[in-house]
């Protein structure tokens, strides 16, 4: 039985690494083909309150900017699923980093980030097999998405097909959440 467990866990770990994530502390690396371009992010809701799911600005360097997807005062969070939409001619997803929200559980959270079509990134973040969710006390980060702007201008990011699920089985969508995204700037 323990051997079987080892096989299962290793399969999952491989999957996670294949998704390209990493947890290097979140410092955005500079450089790129257009170093003079500066990226920044203007959130639609810079001061989230209870039951808000909001994109907030993280650090930025050159043409890359971190966007923190945050939850504020939401209880029993088991996972979240959403698409992030953007103008693929102006913006690229560079990489992603785990946030602190699910990591506090000790239950080996899993993140999947895929871009099946240009301009639409599908994000999934969840605990693994845990029988209870985590509480977002205050504003906590679910996942950090690092975007790169390709040209000057302002480019809207959006949430679509978005939900946060609790730890019941089947997981139930947590109702009453307000989702807000923002705008990427290339200057």
């Amino acid at each position: 039985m323990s051997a079987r467990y080892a096989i299962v866990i290793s399969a999952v770990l491989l999957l996670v690494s294949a998704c390209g994530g990493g947890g290097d502390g979140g410092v955005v690396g500079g450089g790129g083909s257009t170093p003079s371009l500066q990226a920044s992010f203007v959130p639609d809701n810079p001061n989230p309150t209870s039951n808000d799911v909001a994109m907030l600005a993280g650090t930025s360097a050159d043409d890359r900017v971190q966007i923190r997807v945050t939850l504020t005062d939401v209880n029993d969070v088991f996972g979240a699923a959403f698409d992030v939409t953007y103008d693929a001619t102006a913006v690229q997803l560079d990489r992603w980093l785990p946030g602190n929200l699910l990591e506090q559980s000790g239950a080996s959270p899993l993140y999947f980030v895929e871009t099946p079509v240009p301009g639409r990134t599908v994000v999934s973040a969840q605990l693994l097999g845990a029988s209870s969710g985590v509480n977002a006390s205050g504003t906590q980060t679910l996942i950090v998405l690092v975007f790169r702007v390709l040209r000057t201008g302002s480019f809207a990011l959006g949430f679509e097909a978005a939900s946060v699920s609790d730890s019941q089985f089947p997981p139930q969508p947590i109702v009453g959440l307000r989702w807000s995204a923002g705008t990427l700037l290339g200057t």
Partner: protein
Amino acid sequence: MHRARHVGFVFGGLLLAAAPALAGTIRVAWDPVPDAQGYRVYYGTVSGQYTQSLDVGPATETTLTGLADCTTHFVAVKAYNAAGESASFSNEISGWPRPVVGTIAPQAVMQGNQVSVTIRGSNFQGGLAVETDNPYVFFAGAAPATCTEIRATLTAEPMAPGLRAAPIGLFGLTVVNPDGVFGSRTAAYEVLINPARFDVDQRDPATRGRLDGRDTIWIARLFAARETDPLYQPDSDLDGDGWIDGNDLAYIASRLGQCWNGLQWSSSSCPESFQAP
């Protein structure tokens, strides 16, 4: 004592390896006879008229080979010692050579499907049964069209939601003739994963037919539940191995953002609402 006594037979049914194709085999065994130094096996295709014999020495079992397929063979044994052979034969047994399982067509079936299959081989008798080592695959109506071909209906579960899925992979086939003599072939056919089952959370009509985080969250919530756990849910055990594990999660995660077109998952199959903005 120079005569064989109590020479009895049983047809052996213990040989698990398939016999060579087109070379029928019959395995026979008998009770030992006191004072016998050896045994001679007589056989032929007419009862009581044995055209061939084989001295097997002191062994009390042997496998006759090179027999004509789909033909009844009659076998009897005599014991011998220094004084010569017993005067009388043992009781006579008869039967066809052991069934030989060759190919099955189609060779692969997807979970949740029922297909007509043809099994080719030899020595298939009316009243036979077809068995497999996949506990969630069933062969119904198996009957020989000829002694070298069986027609049957193969069902790979789940045929309805909520039923345990047939494990995927290669599985063996066994054909059992009415006399209990059987032939087997390992890795005879394959059960394929059914990707139509990947959309495990279909509660939201807006995302039904699309793989996204709702589906991975569903599997993640059940992670490590095994068949005996109350939380185990057959519809989430995609590969049918009795566990809800990383393999099931990987099937979905590797297709995140893709939509079902009736045959496969692809991003180009998604409706306008899930295409590029």
